[in-house]
């Protein structure tokens, strides 16, 4: 023992250098941009904050988001030339899959930064913390997308989640926001524990947390007894299902979405979900590929449950934010159908769906936020009462008259705000999967991937659930476009600010452009392959 120690010390003599891992700085640019940007923003505002306008933080975050998107395009091209690599001792993978998710998260950060600008002004929540947390949380998401090691993945998950817990509770004067943050935190910590224990079990079974090692080890079939490994699967899945809000791990979603600040909800529904799916695809479809037969049935059942329960619950909601929360659960179920296929086409379809849904979710929640602001202005006296109420489906009915997101507020919206209503119509139709929107091709790609993987019944059920959930969006559309009978007073909804309008216009343009011409985006997703380089 002493001898061995002596040998080690002998190696670290002044003449020989410690072998540090090579660092591919270029590949780390997106990470550095987001994390560094967050820290820098915090510093700037601590030091010279009083001389800066509140818009500065928003534009700064917007620029960081765009830069992240731009750097992922550069990386994408580099990978095309040099192939996928890994860096930091193989801890971080640099492949087109992670770069795709990185770009997606960057774009979402940029859009959410614009949305937050108006939200903060309207709600008088002065401070830059929202932007800082947004950037840090996005860093965690990007880490999750590129993690080549279960420990790194867990780190990313925590960096992402802890920031989002605080973001959910960001609205200090609203008890619903506090409640949302609290619920999310308690349940998130609970499920993180499952995840961590799963990592431990897999380490126990395989002897490594490195995904490439695990993949080779399982491929070789050198595992005699797989009890530990399969137990690890179960617990990892619990953590991931919680993040993507799959039934029965979904219960937090409607409460948290309803209570959290709307820009944060837009971020949660798009970027957080994308990061969760990235982890699921990277770990299960790529690393645990040779154990497909064991985990696919679980995804199959969970996908079914998630699609149908999400859709059914959405239909009976009267609060639009809650309705969209349940509909996002239903969408997650749809993406799980692509995961279940566990083929390259399935991964591509899931990525297409994630990109399409990210745009739809950001746009939809932006509109919901605008309408809610208008509604709050028009019955400012009543809102105070509803704030004290706790959120749950069972109590949602009691305060519906005063809820700023109640479906009744959308009645006759098309007459007062035709352009906004038309934009919302496009986004809702896209969610329903109507042709010439991205939603159609996303669903089409998922279903055809499932059919190619011979999961015919799942494909059929996915189609049925698409029909059922179409009802959710039609209900909202009908409310918007049928004339308002009772409420004759003009809605006091102001003209959307330029920033909010830009966000909605961009998301609608994305939804229509890639709905009419899905080719480009589809080619990108087809090339975004996962590569586990050791």
């Amino acid at each position, binding site marked *: 023992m002493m001898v061995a120690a002596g040998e080690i010390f002998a190696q670290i003599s002044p003449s020989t250098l410690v072998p540090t891992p090579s660092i591919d700085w270029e590949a780390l640019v997106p990470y550095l941009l987001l994390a560094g940007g967050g820290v820098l923003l915090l510093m700037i505002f601590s030091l010279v904050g009083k001389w800066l306008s509140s818009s500065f933080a928003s534009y700064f975050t917007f620029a960081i988001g765009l830069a992240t998107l731009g750097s992922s395009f550069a990386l994408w091209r580099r990978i095309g030339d040099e192939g996928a690599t890994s860096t930091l001792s193989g801890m971080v993978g640099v492949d087109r899959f992670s770069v795709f998710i990185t770009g997606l998260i960057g774009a979402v950060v940029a859009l959410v930064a614009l949305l937050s600008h108006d939200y903060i002004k309207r709600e008088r929540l002065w401070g830059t913390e929202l932007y800082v947390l947004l950037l840090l949380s996005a860093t965690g998401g990007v880490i999750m997308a590129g993690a080549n090691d279960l420990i790194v993945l867990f780190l990313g998950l925590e960096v992402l989640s802890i920031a989002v817990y605080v973001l959910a509770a960001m609205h200090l004067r609203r008890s619903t926001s506090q409640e949302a943050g*609290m*619920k999310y935190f*308690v*349940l998130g910590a*609970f*499920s993180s524990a*499952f995840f961590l224990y799963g990592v431990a079990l897999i380490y126990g079974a395989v002897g490594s947390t490195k995904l490439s090692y695990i993949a080779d080890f399982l491929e070789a079939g050198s595992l*005699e*007894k*797989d*009890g530990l*490994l*399969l*137990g690890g*699967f*179960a*617990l990892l*899945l*619990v953590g991931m*299902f*919680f993040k993507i809000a799959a039934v*029965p*791990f979904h*219960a*937090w979603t*409607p*409460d948290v979405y309803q209570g959290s600040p709307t820009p944060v909800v837009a971020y949660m529904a798009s970027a957080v979900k994308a990061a969760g799916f990235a982890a699921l695809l990277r770990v299960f479809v790529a690393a645990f590929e040779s154990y497909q037969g*064991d985990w696919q*049935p*679980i995804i199959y059942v969970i996908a079914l449950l998630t699609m*149908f*329960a999400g*859709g*059914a*619950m*959405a*239909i*009976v909601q009267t609060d639009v934010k809650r309705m969209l929360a349940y509909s996002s659960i239903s969408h997650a179920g749809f993406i799980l159908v692509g995961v279940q296929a566990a083929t390259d086409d399935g991964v591509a379809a899931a990525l297409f769906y994630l990109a399409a849904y990210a745009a739809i979710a950001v746009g939809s929640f932006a509109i919901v936020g605008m309408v809610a602001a208008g509604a709050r202005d028009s019955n400012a006296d009543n809102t105070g009462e509803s704030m004290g109420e*706790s*959120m*749950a*489906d*069972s*109590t949602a009915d009691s305060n519906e008259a005063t809820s700023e997101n109640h479906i009744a507020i959308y009645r006759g919206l098309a007459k007062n705000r035709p352009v906004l209503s038309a934009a919302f119509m496009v986004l809702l139709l896209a969610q329903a999967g109507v042709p010439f929107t991205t939603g159609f091709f996303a669903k*089409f*790609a998922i279903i*055809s991937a499932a059919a*190619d993987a011979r999961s015919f019944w799942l494909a059929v059920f996915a189609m049925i659930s698409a029909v*059922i959930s179409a*009802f959710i969006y039609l209900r909202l559309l009908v409310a918007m476009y049928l004339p308002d009978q009772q409420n004759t007073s003009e809605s006091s909804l102001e003209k959307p600010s330029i920033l909010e309008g830009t966000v909605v216009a961009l998301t609608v343009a994305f939804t229509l452009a890639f709905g009419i*011409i*899905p*080719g*480009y985006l*589809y*080619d990108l997703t087809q090339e975004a392959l996962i590569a586990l380089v050791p």
Partner: protein
Amino acid sequence: MERLVWLIALMPLIGFALLLVGGRRLGEPRAGLLATTATAASFVASVLVFIGLLGLEGDERSVTFTLFSWVPAGDLSVDVSFLADPLSITMALFITGVSTLIHLYSLGYMHGDENFSKFFIYLNLFVFSMLILVLSDNLLLTFLGWEGVGVCSYLLISFWFGDEANASAGKKAFVTNRVGDFGFMVAIFLTFGAFGTLNYNDIFADTSVVTSTTASAIVLLLILGAAGKSAQLPLYVWLPDAMAGPTPVSALIHAATMVTAGVYLLVRVNPLLAVADGWVLDILAWIGLATALIAATAAIAQRDIKKVLAYSTISQLGFMFVAVGVGSYTAAIFHMITHAFFKALLFLGSGSVIHAMDNEQNMSRYGGLAKFLPVTAVTFGIGWLAIAGVPPFSGFWSKDEILAGAWNNNKLLWALLLFAAMLTAFYMSRAVFMTFFGEKRWGAGAGNSSENMTETDEHSAADVEISSADDVEVADTANIGAAKTVSTAPHESPPTMLMPLVVLALLATVAGVLNLPFVKSTHFLEKWLEPSLYHNEAQLGFAGGTKWVLAAVAIVASFAGIWIAVQFYLKKVAPTRLVELDIFARAWRYDETITKVAGGPGRRAFDKIALFDRRGVDGVVNGVGSLVQTGGHWLRQFQTGKVRSYALGIALGAVILLAYFIARASF
């Protein structure tokens, strides 16, 4: 320059988009000018592509320009790409050219309409769809354009939808076309099944992969589709009613361009027609002939000037079908072009007359208008001579080609078609004489011609009878029955309306030079179209002398038609009711019979189906709906809002997952 083909379709799309955003703000006349400019730019682009193609060798005159991959999924890969070849560019040239003129005309015609900018939005969208239809390099994109023009046609027929008749005419066109579209759609599926591709060049590269039976099935279904869009038997009934739309729309969509789409489609897939069984083409030719005859006889007895022109259009489209059926593709395209010129001219001329006569469309209230509307009268007269087949006007040359093709195929076909040509000369002469010559039957002079009035009343009575069978006719009857009096003397239309008339009149006069029959070297159109026709053009199997005799016979026939009309309508040697038979006025009762069947036994059958739909299908759907609702309400009770119950859900889920995996594990 042939790479610019995408510009042709882009221009009207830009016009459409700009008008959609700011059309109302631009207002009259700027919105219309913008639309006209867009179409004119598209015409310029077509000319550039045409020049580019001319610079290439004959065999290389087929350039594909891919914009982007549209449906990239699996086996079915469809690109949005344009095919610039002689056939498509010929179509694009006359579509954009005629469209530009009609846009210009509409500036005057739609003056003061409250939906002025909306009209041009639709018009530009129509031109865009039509160009997509002809420029596409695959069946699916063609179908998209096909549906696009259908929608525009529906929107424009019922443009003045305040009037119930216009709205229902639009619906009738839409529904009838659906029958044809169904055929087209199934043909697309069959083609994909047989060839594994929808791209024209790939399909035509090797047509031997399909049996003649499959090819026959595809072609028959395409004929059904073409019959819907090009208003042939058994689906022609929508076109006469479609005249409810504004006159420029009738000229552009229901005479010059959209209705020729069926003919274009059949010419486009000529390699498939070549593989199909012979009897399929015979059916095509006889459908065309029957339509040509029925519509020509119906045109004889119409009082509404636009109805005469509508039946005339159907009849002329029948000529083109015959041409395709006998393999004279060049003749079909040739007649399509000349017809576009002279029929657009006639429609625009009729619009000018209607405009001058305070929206009166009944020819028995016209008469002697030549001296009031000199420009309209002269240009309309040129259109008349062109369609009647009087040399040297363009219609003579193209119709002669079709007759020669028919003679080559079947003598009986030729004889009957010649009769239809004679009827054409007769009914058009009748329309011209009733409108521009004779004594005036309007305004203060109306009372003088009591004979004419009684005749009109008789006729209106017949019309009322028809209308009891068919609601759609009500408006026309109302139009005809209402005794309008023109307070002031009719005046000539504004220059924006007359200019297109003059240009079209020139074109209708000289378009014959496109393909003169004298020597081989003057067959310009035939040589130009050759690369698109893959040597499928039928070769005439008779000597040049026969051709001259046939031409002479055709000239005699058209002069005979005009001479008979002179006897009846100018010299009045016999009462006109000898030729204006009731059965003609009702178009052989075809439309009524369909309406009666559809409204009687058909309706009862559909009621039964609707009942089944309500009880059966809707029951299932509603059942699923309420099941989902119940399920949702049931699930709601778990959404308590309490963190501990949510955590319990997660824990239970974890336990189930663990249990499942452990059950599969080996320890």
